[in-house]
């Protein structure tokens, strides 16, 4: 946004934003019988510079720090607030645009206005110049953030196209803790989010995510932890999932759908039915499993980015 744009955006915003959006709604009110001598403590403790004076449900005035200073300067005797408050209460409606508030501040020179509901005339909040500035800044910041996010997404989505090189390789690594069922899937989740941001085909991203997630579950269920490494190239995503034990005694057996050595607690959580590797195989363009008992297991998953929705069900 250029500086000129920003100014016209503020001009738009004072018409767009309603007073109700920026006012303070948890209003501290004071009763008319409160003494002037008590006012200082209230203003200081609540960190406010003024407050509506309420007689039951009815707003009878507004008392401010200016009234307090005047009372002090005049060295008058202590008296109820009702004698010193300004009774000419100007109000604003919550559904009016900010520009209305700006005008009123200029016209009356008050520090604050009570904000009421147009129909019920009930007190909803209080608005100061500071609230207006803060409201505008917040809105501008949100605009700014959205703009940055858009630029960021656009920039990332053309990542591969934008890079001029004979070969582009991106590497991602995620560490997985063993037996931590609650956090299982965080690695696959983060990899999925990263691939999405790169603007890869959603079907490809989904296949990588499912295969990686199943592999991550295996690390969590059967090992003390391991690593997921993903190598992303324009033509292929290669995921290597490795651990350092206990290893698989019979690889042919674990590749059979339905074969499982998962303990009961894992099955109760909806996994461990011997379908994981089978799922990975279905999602992958190529899959390879290597294991040495006592040393560890490596699973290699390759997904060709040209394959799209290759798998029947996925």
């Amino acid at each position, binding site marked *: 946004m250029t500086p000129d744009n920003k100014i016209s955006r503020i001009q738009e915003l004072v018409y767009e934003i309603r007073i109700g959006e920026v006012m303070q709604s948890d209003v501290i009110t004071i009763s008319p019988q409160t003494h002037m001598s008590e006012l200082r403590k209230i203003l200081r403790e609540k960190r406010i510079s003024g407050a509506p004076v309420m007689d039951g449900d009815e707003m009878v005035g507004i008392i401010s720090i200016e009234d307090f200073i005047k009372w002090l300067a005049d060295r008058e005797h202590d008296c109820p607030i009702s004698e010193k408050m300004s009774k000419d209460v100007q109000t604003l409606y919550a559904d009016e645009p900010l520009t209305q508030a700006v005008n009123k501040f200029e016209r009356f020179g008050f520090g604050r206005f009570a904000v009421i509901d147009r129909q019920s005339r009930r007190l909803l909040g209080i608005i100061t110049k500071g609230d207006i500035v803060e409201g505008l800044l917040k809105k501008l910041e949100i605009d700014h953030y959205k703009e940055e996010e858009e630029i960021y997404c656009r920039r990332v989505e053309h990542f591969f196209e934008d890079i001029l090189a004979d070969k582009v390789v991106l590497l991602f690594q995620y560490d997985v803790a063993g037996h931590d*069922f*609650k956090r*299982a*899937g965080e690695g*696959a*989740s983060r990899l*999925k989010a990263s691939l999405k941001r790169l603007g890869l085909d*959603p079907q490809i991203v*989904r296949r990588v*995510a*499912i295969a990686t*997630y*199943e592999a991550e*579950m295996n690390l969590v269920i059967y090992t003390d932890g391991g690593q997921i490494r993903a190598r992303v190239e324009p033509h292929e995503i290669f995921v290597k999932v490795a651990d350092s034990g206990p290893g698989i005694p019979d690889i042919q057996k674990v590749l059979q759908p339905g074969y499982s050595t998962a303990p009961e607690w894992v099955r109760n*959580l*909806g*996994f461990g*039915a011997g*379908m*994981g590797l*089978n*799922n990975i195989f*279905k999602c992958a363009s190529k899959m390879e499993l290597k294991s040495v008992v006592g040393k560890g297991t490596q699973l290699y998953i390759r997904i060709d980015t040209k394959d799209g929705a290759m798998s*029947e*069900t*996925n």
Partner: protein
Amino acid sequence: MILKDIQKILEAEVIVGDDLLGEDITIACGCDLMSDVLSFVKPGALLLTGLINPQVVRTAEMADLRAICFVRGKRPAQETIELAQSKSIPLLTTPLLLFESCGRLHREGLSGCSENKKKIK
């Protein structure tokens, strides 16, 4: 149909995702085995399940599911709810059993993931 219709048909309560009830849903899957969900479900589907651990939400996230409805009146713990919230996956809970939930939705026109495959062919 939209998620709001599903909520009515299943007499379900929305646990999280009130703002996502307008999401369009055309297919569903009823399953308690997450590996099977990952294997057979289509992107954009509704998952009906009796499991309530956080991995159900992870499964939905990985498989691009649109919403989860817990059956048999089950309610997940806070960590599952928070995960769903952060992934913008609405969670519902119905007092109905899995079979009845699936039956009602199928009768109202929601198809299953294998039927959908036939349609595409």
